């Protein structure tokens, strides 16, 4: 299987996982964003919220890294710049979900 096919399969599988997670997260975000500190921490302290938020962040950043690398492919001519842009993108998109997972598992009320 060539790399482009693998990339396409990863994109499609991650988008199928992402759709219900986005619906779940945005409904909950709307319901909690104006609430008090204690309510918000309580929400993120429950096991389902920790798990689903972590999963959302991992899949969303994974999906975005693949999608944005496609944008780089389409619009950046210079191979060196494209390579640097992709490496920066992948590094950033690995670090952010890792940090947020650590934060979520340290949040307790």
């Amino acid at each position: 299987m060539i790399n482009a096919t693998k990339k396409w399969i990863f994109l499609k599988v991650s988008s199928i996982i992402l759709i219900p997670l986005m619906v779940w997260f945005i409904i909950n975000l709307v319901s909690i964003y104006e609430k008090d500190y204690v309510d918000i921490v309580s929400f993120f302290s429950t096991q389902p919220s920790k798990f689903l938020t972590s999963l959302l962040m991992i899949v969303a950043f994974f999906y975005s890294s693949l999608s944005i690398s496609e944008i780089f492919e389409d619009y950046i001519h210079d191979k060196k710049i494209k390579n640097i842009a992709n490496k920066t993108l992948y590094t950033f998109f690995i670090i952010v979900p890792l940090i947020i997972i650590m934060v979520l598992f340290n949040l307790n009320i």
Partner: protein
Amino acid sequence: MENKNPLSPHIQIYSWNISLLISISHRIIGVINIVALTLVCLWIALLLLGEENYEYIKFFLQSFLGKFLILGLTWSFSFQILSEVRHLFWDFGYGFELITSKITGLIVIFGSFVLTILIYLIGKQII
């Protein structure tokens, strides 16, 4: 010799239509959503600073700008969800006819506003 041909998707050459509009919007909104999710990550991380420091963030989120940003994020999520579903139908071989493509494009545009209202009302437990 330097190649000055435009790269995909040639937005400066083709005349604008629904499919082109949805295609480029899908990309732009995808980037906006990941920037927004990064800010959501920052918001969650700031919870570690404690209740007293959170008052500033709460004040911002309860302001007009804060509510507008959340509503905007709800719309951009709604748009991407519907556009992604449209792409998945294409992947299974459905919806390639020109008229179907135009109709589903319009469903993505107008449906995103309907879905935004629906998500907001469910989130606020009004329905």
